[in-house]
């Protein structure tokens, strides 16, 4: 057992120096504990809380680049609600997020179950699956830009050669529906590994006995998935869906590289519209209002999903 300075003092040893008094003070639980989390708090405050607070202030002011504005209350929010492009952006964001997250969920579970099997070169395959998630989005999206190019689209070229479509094929980035399909495709391609690997971790934790018991009871593979696997991976799934929803709502790179919100604003998301209005257009107040608009909704989603996860 270590002997503290006070014990030594009580035992008649000479009074400890300043350094050991400081050490004694530092080693008290409440001081030491707070001391350890201070760096994290400083980081959070300076890099998250402060910019967030500034964004809220911007959204409530008529702040323009280079000219500090005054407080205008909720005017920015009222203005953006009353305009067509913003309403279109809200609709785009829900369509984009709804379809992309659903696809990522279904395909992600499917991919995770494939990866959970005892395949040859299991580790290599798992590594490769993670690639889209590892490559910087802006770079990989540039490759997709070429694949969807109006003249040199490898997607169209392949489909035409396989006689699946007639030449010249869809104009991927120039027609609203195709453009939305294109940005969703890239988002799913990029987000799928995150889903698959996290769900795979959940699958690994499912005890084999349950599956064996279900098999003995004569459950089909679908029954086993629906009644055994799915309920057991639900908490993991809930967390992944939560994160994915937040990331997908906040997507910027993919749309900015592929369509810049076009054609006719049909692929704008909150982040791209906020960039266009706030930074390119200089209206920081409205830009901030656009990017914060979805925040209360997302906060609610986070609240309820985390409650659900805790219950589970």
């Amino acid at each position, binding site marked *: 057992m270590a002997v503290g300075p006070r014990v030594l003092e009580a035992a008649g040893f000479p009074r400890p120096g300043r350094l050991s008094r400081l050490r004694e003070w530092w080693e008290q639980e409440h001081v030491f504990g707070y001391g350890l989390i201070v760096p994290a708090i400083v980081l959070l405050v300076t890099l998250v809380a402060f910019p967030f607070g500034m964004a809220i202030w911007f959204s409530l002011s*008529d702040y*323009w*680049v*280079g*000219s500090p504005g005054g407080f205008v209350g909720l005017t920015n929010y009222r*203005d*953006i609600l*009353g*305009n*067509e*492009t*913003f309403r279109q952006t809200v609709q785009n964001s829900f369509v984009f997020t709804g379809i992309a997250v659903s696809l990522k969920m279904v395909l992600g579970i499917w991919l995770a179950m494939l990866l959970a099997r005892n395949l040859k070169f299991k580790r290599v395959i798992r590594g490769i699956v993670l690639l889209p998630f590892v490559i910087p989005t802006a770079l990989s999206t540039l490759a997709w830009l070429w694949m969807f*190019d*109006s*003249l*040199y689209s490898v997607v169209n070229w392949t489909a035409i050669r396989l006689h699946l479509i007639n030449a*010249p094929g869809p*104009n*991927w*980035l*120039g*027609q609203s529906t195709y*453009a939305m399909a294109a940005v969703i495709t890239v988002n799913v391609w990029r987000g799928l590994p995150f889903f698959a690997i996290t769900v795979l971790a959940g699958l690994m934790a499912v005890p084999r006995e349950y599956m064996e018991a279900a098999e003995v009871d004569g459950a089909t593979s679908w029954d086993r998935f629906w009644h055994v696997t799915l309920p057991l991976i639900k908490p993991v799934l809930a967390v992944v869906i939560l994160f994915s929803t937040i990331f997908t709502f906040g997507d910027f790179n993919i749309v900015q590289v592929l*369509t*810049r*919100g*076009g*054609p*006719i*604003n049909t692929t704008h998301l909150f982040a791209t519209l906020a*960039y*266009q*209005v706030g*930074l*390119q*257009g*200089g*209206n*920081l107040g*409205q830009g901030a209002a*656009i990017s914060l608009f979805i925040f209360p909704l997302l906060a609610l989603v986070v609240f309820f999903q985390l409650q659900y996860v805790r219950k589970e």
Partner: protein
Amino acid sequence: MKKPDRRVPTRRQFLATTAGATAGMASWLALGKAPAFAQKRELTFLSWNHFVPASDDELRKQAEAFGKVANCTVRVDTMAHLQMPAKVAAEAQSQSGHDMYRTAGADPFLYENLLLSVDDVVEKVGKQGGGWYSFSAESSQTKSGWKSIPWFWISFPGTYNQAHFKKAGFEGPPKTWDELLKMGKVLKKQGNPVGLPISHCSDAHSTYWSVAWSFGAKVLEADGKTPGISSDKTAQVIEWYKELYKDAMEPEVLSWDDAGNNRFMLSGKGSWIHNPVSPYNAALANKQPIADDINHHNSLAGSAGRHSAPPILSLGIWKFSKNQELAKEFVAYLFQKQNYDAWIVASNAFNHPPLKNLADHPIWARNPKFAMLPKEAEYAHPRGWPAKPSDTVQRIDDNYIMTDMVAKAINGMPTKRAMDWAQEQVALAVKGQLKG
């Protein structure tokens, strides 16, 4: 008593020296700059990644040469042109960053209060260079003086494939937008459509403004505050675009970025685009045989004459700069005839001077495909004309209002409704709101 050894400092000497050095170092660190004896002035300049990289090489060479003359260092930072507005906005916002930067669009008006008045440089350089073209004042002179020095402009002529035109039975390129429509119909049937971007890219703006002015249509009245879209002229522009889209172009124009039309021309498919000479220069540089077929012609005319909206780029000096006089000297240095000439050559005739004497450079006359380019200066206006460039004009472009108006009409919205929609957006842009 033993005398202290001269070579070994006493304790007192050591303390005095180290304390001094520590204090000096601390003040150096606190001020963030080297002490006066080691200091060399540094001028920082933010520019774009030029489309012709050799032009940036020449700029850096001149910056270094100026550094030697003025006993300073000049740091030229370059970045992608699409990212510049955000970077410039951040510098304006934080009142810190580079000493000077390459301005574009409505910057001199947008940052009127933050940019230094440069009337003295404009006058001096203008006198030496035989006077400024009229678009220079239109694009840089604000109510509180010249806020930037026009640096260069990029001609935006018609670029066409002679072989395709010849095959279709045409003697030469079109002279008017109406002729382009007529020829385009034949060319599309031949498998060589024409192409104008109708998408979220900056070439789409340049073309729309040029077409609109040539038809006599406006976006804003001269006061810069009254929307001027709703008119028969704009309706004609929209109808012209619709017909051109349907009979002479292909849907890909709705998805183009700024390089889309270049690819279209270089692929050999396209017969005509509205673009700077970059496809020709790229074909030459890559030794593509298509370079022989590509040629240029002057901006097209309409019922209201010949007008063009080329990109006009200037040099602005921030008021927060600590090196304002040095920046002015550097600008004057860049405009010295031998320097500017070398820069034109490095850009392979891409950089056009806003000064009449400098435009006499033989590079244009030497190549028949460039010979008509200097003439373009007479048709040029900054976007927004007849209104002055302003934050409103910038918002109209940044929010792609005109492009979207045309795209809506092409996608089936009745012309009048598309026009009314745009009129309303411009009214909101005047008020500084997001388009609705």
